């Protein structure tokens, strides 16, 4: 068996979650950066504000994430110069998809979730794979703890299942505070069983009055 010495990626672990409400959006990600069975840092932000009402959270290879964030930020600046306004969340979603597919044959090793408010002020969440396939959904989770979180969200969000056809708008009827509490609960649960998730969870809430951020402690083991 030949020894493969060209593996250029690394999985830094971590989990991201986003939930869309009728007039808000909650995006959350843990702050642990790991490699193998070691922790590099307990204090790394996987969340990036791309535009006024648009925030991206990603798990996967953080080196690629940094590059992707810089790329999108530069593209957003160009857009602002040309159009004299900020990019809307759906526009940024398409841009992210195209940027990811551009590197179809040497992908960004990132599993992204985009969250924000659309032009009507409704919450929107877009979920991606590594090469840009994306879909607007009512909620999503990506990363090492996603498998533990998605079933709980399916059950607790009281929104139509995104797996049913015809596709229905899966925005949750929950209040903003209830959604934030749910996010804290699912992260606490994922932290119990997933070794890559823990330390702190960074929760960002976007609504009509702007963006606010809070941090919650998680188990450190």
């Amino acid at each position, binding site marked *: 068996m030949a020894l493969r010495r060209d593996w250029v990626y690394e999985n830094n672990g971590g989990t991201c979650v986003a939930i869309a409400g009728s007039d808000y959006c909650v995006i959350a990600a843990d702050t642990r950066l790991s490699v193998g069975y070691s922790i590099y840092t307990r204090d790394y932000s996987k969340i990036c504000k791309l535009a006024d009402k648009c925030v991206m959270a990603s798990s996967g290879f953080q080196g690629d994430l940094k590059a992707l964030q810089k790329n999108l930020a*530069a593209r957003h600046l*160009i857009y602002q110069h040309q159009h004299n306004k900020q990019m809307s969340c759906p526009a940024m979603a398409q841009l992210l998809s195209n940027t990811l597919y551009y590197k179809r044959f040497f992908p960004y090793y990132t599993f992204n979730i985009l969250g924000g408010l659309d032009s009507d002020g409704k919450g929107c969440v877009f979920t991606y794979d590594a090469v840009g396939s994306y879909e607007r959904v009512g909620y999503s989770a990506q990363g090492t703890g996603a498998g533990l979180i998605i079933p709980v969200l399916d059950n607790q969000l009281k929104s139509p299942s995104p797996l049913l056809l015809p596709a229905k708008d899966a925005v949750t009827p929950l209040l903003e505070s209830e959604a934030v509490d749910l996010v804290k609960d699912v992260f606490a649960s994922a932290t119990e069983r997933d070794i890559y998730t823990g330390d702190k969870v960074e929760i960002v809430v976007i609504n009509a009055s702007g963006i606010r951020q809070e941090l919650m402690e998680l188990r450190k083991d």
Partner: protein
Amino acid sequence: MFRNQYDTDVTTWSPAGRLFQVEYAMEAVKQGAAAVGLRSTSHVVLATVNKAASDLSSHQRKVFKIDDHIGVAIAGLTADGRVLSRYLRNECINHSFVYESPLPVSRLVVRLADKAQVCTQRSWKRPFGVGLLVAGLDETGAHLYYNCPSGNYFEYQAFAIGSRSQAAKTFMERRFEAFNGYSRDELIKDALFAIKETLQGEKLTSSICTVAVVGIDEPFHMLDQKIIQEVIDSIEIKEDDAAAATAAADQAPMQEEDKSSEAAPMDI
């Protein structure tokens, strides 16, 4: 300036060592509507006169934000100005991407000057017909540069370009030594005074001028029309008071163009 046999293309020297096409390009700048720039140690102010082609049309944009810390005001062919602004924005974005820090103003003007120079040495190109006042802030402080179509650039405490700019220059020549100590508001006021000089009788209102500021802790932005009108109003009040006191106001000879310095202006 008259036509002669050495001005057909930019790659032909005249016997006197001049490139007439480049000088004609600088003429285009002098025909454009006025733009002035003033600098203190902490702020730079740009102000332009917005000429509209007719009462039915909108004003041309003459002030462009290049980055949070740099902006430009143009005079001359505004289309050329727009294209150069796009180039400058790109340069700033690329530098920020690679070095995670804002592009120093002096480096930006050098790149712009080199780009302009290329067009003075290719037979299939023409010089840009636009002069740019580049206002920016970086680690070394506040800067105001003037880039001309010839590829030359100079740093100034204060400068004016475009039609009737000599009136503004004369006004600023009397006061520039104090500019470094000026507050932000005093700088804006003087910029509007300078613009007023170029109007030579026409009424100064906020609808015909644009004012932009960049400063420490103040990203480059254009001032609201209301704020500009307030400053203009305060200027008019002061002037009405002063008019009685200085009845024999010194009128510096207003020259439309400084003819004596037109011999080989690139030697500046």
